[in-house]
């Protein structure tokens, strides 16, 4: 059940009506049932995986909390990690690693037996696994007291608003909101409506439409020239941002309706001034997760520059692998790790103090954006051979077709409201700045958003990109 479907609209209306009528305790039970139903609509068999992860982490966290024996605590944490990463690794990476090993064996002249299982990846497994694991780790680190209510914990893991594509919430932030009574407010409905429809606009008007060109270029169905490749990469940069941030906005909007404050996952990432800034703005819940549970435990920047660079590379490679089981994701992660390491090397250990000039700032933003776009080329390409082919076309095959002009027109026109809102958010530092505009610009923005949804929404029900992760 996609957020951008009539089925979901009906589902949410029913859930919201019942939710408004129930007392706090009943609200949580209702949301739990609704969340399992929501997830079961994709494939009910995989509900068992969520239930397993929930049961293991709930029990383990309570065991860790009760025990004062460091070995026992560590053993329990290891059990939680083993179950969560075991399930994730099996469903997501088994075929990848076996396939890679088979390919290597064939290269070396062996004839390995086919061991790949052709597993179906459970939707959102990477998100809820990481969310559930963070809870156990926080309890282990004594940063969090475990909950005694299993059903509340089950709701924390499975809350349908952000179950399948994040943000990856932390228990300290969301679980507290689950255990406390919540109220439905006009302010929540107002901001929730804006966030939901703005997310919908980004997804179905911008993301799904510009995907048309990105798909054509990356599948090779249009000739690769410098113009077509460049536009294809720009289109994909816009598509993935609009697609993924749309889901986060919609999740936040739905949360507001229900009285939750879901964390912000994106802060205008294409306005970033350097790679480090980019990762403070892009998929914030994952980058902060990787920082807190991987980079810092590896030593962070406390063990000298060389180790810091290695930690950055390892963290980003694993971050890339989190996105999917393919070498392109590994190289994408490695590329971003290198970017971060180079940036750190160039910048030195201390952040720049002088505020940049207008042109300096624009130049840095432009350079960062293009470096990120190069990363998207690695991320989206079907294979490394395609990456090489597209890069070669970019340099050696100049050309600009009529189709490029038409798509440029479409991309620019559809994304105009996006840039307006982003500039406003960036200048004010307020993600809800559009709601604080005065009457005339707000009316124009609402009309443009609604008009765009009516006229140009792609109703092909294209799933969110990050569902596959």
């Amino acid at each position, binding site marked *: 059940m996609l957020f951008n479907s009539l089925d979901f609209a009906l589902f949410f209306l029913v859930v919201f009506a019942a939710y408004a009528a129930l007392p706090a305790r009943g609200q949580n039970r209702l949301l739990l049932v609704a969340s399992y139903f929501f997830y079961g609509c994709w494939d009910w068999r995989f509900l068992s995986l969520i239930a397993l992860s929930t049961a293991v982490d709930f029990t383990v966290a309570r065991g860790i909390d009760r025990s004062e024996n460091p070995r026992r605590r560590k053993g329990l944490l290891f059990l939680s990690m083993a179950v969560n990463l075991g399930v994730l690794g099996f469903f997501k990476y088994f075929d990848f690693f076996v396939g890679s090993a088979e390919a290597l064996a064939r290269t070396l002249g062996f004839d390995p037996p086919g061991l790949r299982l052709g597993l179906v990846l459970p939707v959102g497994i990477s998100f809820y696994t990481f969310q559930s694991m963070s809870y156990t780790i926080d309890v282990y680190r004594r940063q969090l007291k475990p909950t005694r209510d299993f059903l509340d914990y089950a709701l924390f893991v499975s809350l349908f608003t952000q179950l399948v594509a994040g943000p990856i919430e932390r228990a300290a932030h969301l679980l507290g909101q689950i255990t406390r009574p919540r109220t439905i407010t006009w302010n929540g409905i107002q901001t929730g409506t804006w966030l939901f429809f703005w997310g919908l606009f980004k997804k179905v008007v911008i993301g799904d439409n510009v995907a048309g060109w990105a798909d054509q270029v990356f599948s090779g169905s249009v000739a690769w020239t410098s113009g077509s490749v460049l536009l294809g990469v720009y289109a994909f940069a816009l598509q993935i941002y609009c697609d993924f941030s749309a889901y986060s906005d919609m999740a936040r909007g739905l949360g507001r309706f229900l009285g939750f404050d879901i964390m912000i996952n994106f802060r205008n990432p294409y306005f970033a001034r350097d790679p480090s800034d980019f990762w403070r703005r892009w998929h914030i819940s994952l980058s902060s997760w990787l920082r807190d549970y991987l980079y810092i435990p590896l030593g962070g920047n406390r063990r000298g520059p060389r180790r810091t660079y290695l930690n950055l590379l390892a963290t980003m490679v694993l971050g890339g692998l989190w996105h999917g089981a393919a070498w392109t994701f590994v190289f994408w992660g490695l590329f971003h790790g290198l970017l971060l390491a180079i940036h750190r090397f160039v910048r030195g250990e201390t952040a720049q103090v002088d505020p940049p000039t207008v042109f300096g700032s624009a130049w840095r933003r432009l350079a960062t954006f293009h470096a990120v776009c190069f990363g998207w080329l690695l991320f989206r390409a079907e294979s490394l051979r395609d990456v090489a082919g597209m890069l070669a076309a970019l340099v050696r095959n100049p050309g600009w077709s009529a189709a490029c002009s038409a798509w440029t027109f479409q991309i620019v*026109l559809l994304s105009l409201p996006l840039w307006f809102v982003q500039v406003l958010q960036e200048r*004010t530092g307020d993600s809800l700045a559009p709601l604080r505009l*005065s*009457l005339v610009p707000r*009316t124009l923005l609402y009309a443009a958003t609604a008009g765009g949804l009516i*006229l140009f929404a792609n109703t092909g029900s294209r799933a969110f990109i990050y569902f596959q992760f």
Partner: protein
Amino acid sequence: MNPLPHPPNPKTPDAAERRWLRRYGWLLPLAGIPLGLWIGRKTWPAVLLVPTLATDGFDAKGLAIGLAIAALPLAWLAGLWFERRWPRTRRWSIAPVLAALALLLADVALRTNLGQSLFWQAVLARSGQQHQAREISLFRLEAADQAATPRPGIVLAGSSQLVYGIDGAQLAALTGQPVHRRAAAGMFPTELVASQGWFDFHPDNRVVLMLSGFDLGARHDLFPEAIRPLATLSGLRNLLGAARARFLLRRWRALVDLGSAAACEFWRSRDYARFLLEHPFRAAETAAAANETATAEQKDAYARLGANGEMVALCEEALARFFADLAGRCREIVVLEGQVNPAYPGGELADLSREARDLLQRLHRQGTVRFVPREEQVLDLPEDLWRDMTHVGPEGRRRLTEAFARALAKPAPAISPAP
């Protein structure tokens, strides 16, 4: 004196707006009128894809656009003033209401003759090899013209069999009456009934259709994307009224879609708005793959003819309602029994043809329509006059048009009751 004092927090959107207005607000009145006049001059060349088209240097519409742009800072300031004086708790709902009103006005503007002309001429100019875009734009342009100045005549309604089978100019010459085309490819009974609102623009119209068993069984389900561009409220009422509750419940998404299309011109035209967006500067080209897909879909349709009995029953009931409703809104409805290539493989077609004939004969007896069965059409269309299984070639087109003219010239034939 500056009317916009500095607000205390320069980072709020309110402050950003005031700063913007103070710095750049004067540009809008200065550039607005020349910009409006330029838009007015360039609109038709852009719509018709003829950059060299000579247009007037000055026009009232361009001036109106220019004045609207010029007045924007004043409206903006009024909004800021209003925001300060209206209680915060109430004012949040004003902008959504105004936005809805603006969209409503835009929808009404698109329904006007000018709005329709601009939109559908733009689609027509870009239709190129996209036959459906060309047919729908011609349909809608004629409909807009008729809505502005209704003139009675022969209204040809039906599917591609009619589009490619009848020469409108030849029929007009033979009958001496104006011919209005309301036909498009894929306009089978579900689409035909849903588009009813486009046929009843004048009480003296003679609505002429060609129906056969093929039409009755051509759709194996409801296809909102085929119905949407021509959906009307009156037509949808007859189509959905004919369906059973369970059928409708299973297709509730389609109902939401079609209901929106019938009520809102923006939604009804959205496929072609997207078409314009995809072809802003030049006419569409059809890839060879698209033609192959179309041929494969046609073959699939032949194979699935009449596969869904529920749809056949829905079409029959919907047609009965449609004719009964339309009969009171026009002078006469003439239905010629259609035919397909004699080489068409039998299968379901014989049963469907019988059902279609039974239905039309019943309606004829009731006085709702004038049915002209095949044997009365004096029409010989051997295999070599067909370009495929359902569409005639040029000679077939000439003969079919003549048969239509003869049928329209004749008084209503008496049909004996079916045994």
